[in-house]
């Protein structure tokens, strides 16, 4: 089993349980920016009831183990569930519960479906604009690199920069956005 066969099992389980979800992190950056490898998968899930998570856990029993410790992500207020594969070495899927944060809600509502030949199924992804806003908001060095890559590959003229600037203004990260844009070679913007 590969990391992404594991991802397929998770996505299939989410679809079967009718849990709305969204793949973020390196997968989304790979689609819109520069493809890069990853060793874990981040998924935002909209859980209407706590029971859905238990059903998901039962459906994937034997394949993964859900960490009983739930963590809290301070930036957006999301609850995070760590899911580890029962393989050696274990691989990680992080399930982030959809929070009430306005941007997180908007990003989720704008999600779009893409087909992956490797996975052999459709997956739900954020829009490229939302990837940029989220990465700028996180603001770690690797996040800013990811934001730069998406901006450079997609180009400023193709992206909805008004939308990006609107949310960066809300998050008080406009300076960060402008610094990232300035770091892109002029002919690639």
């Amino acid at each position: 089993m590969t990391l992404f066969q594991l991802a397929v099992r998770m996505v299939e389980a989410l679809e079967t349980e009718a849990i709305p979800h969204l793949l973020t992190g390196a997968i989304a950056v790979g689609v819109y920016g520069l493809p890069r490898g990853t060793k874990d998968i981040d998924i935002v899930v909209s859980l209407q009831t706590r029971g859905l998570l238990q059903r998901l856990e039962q459906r994937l029993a034997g394949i993964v183990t859900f960490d009983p410790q739930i963590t809290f992500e301070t930036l957006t207020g999301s609850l995070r569930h760590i899911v580890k594969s029962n393989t050696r070495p274990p691989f990680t899927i992080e399930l982030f519960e959809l929070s009430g944060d306005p941007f997180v809600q908007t990003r989720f509502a704008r999600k779009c479906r893409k087909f992956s030949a490797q996975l052999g199924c459709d997956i739900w992804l954020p829009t490229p604009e939302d990837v940029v806003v989220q990465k700028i908001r996180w603001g770690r060095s690797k996040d800013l690199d990811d934001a730069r890559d998406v901006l450079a590959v997609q180009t400023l003229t193709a992206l909805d920069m008004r939308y990006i600037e609107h949310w960066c203004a809300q998050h008080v990260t406009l300076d960060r956005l402008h610094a990232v844009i300035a770091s892109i070679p002029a002919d690639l913007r």
Partner: protein
Amino acid sequence: MGFQPTRLLKHDTPKAGPHKGPAFFVPPPAQPHVRLAKRTPGGILPAMTDWQSDPATLRAVQEEIYRGKVLRARSLTETQRLDEALELSNGIYGSPGSADEEARWDEVERRLRILRRLHEHNLYFPVEAA
């Protein structure tokens, strides 16, 4: 002295037992008159030896490499980029169920073969110092 291709040394008796150590890229002996350069659409990039002492040159080289990556990514479809990201992740990390160390070293070798093909296709090649 001509350019000596990088050699991969693997455990010399891989079937005889567990590995005693990791596989390494063993760089060729120091050859101050032979340096790697990168062929780009705009020509050959400056020799590497000055990179660390000349920030402007370093910056130009970094931008050129980045430009190549971006232009290549733009030439792919979203599906192709997604599948490439998955393929990249499936490499060394991709066999969580395998405890077979030999299989992991085979994967390392596979990746090094890809690197050698890059050299063979003239993406990187030795040049004489000016």
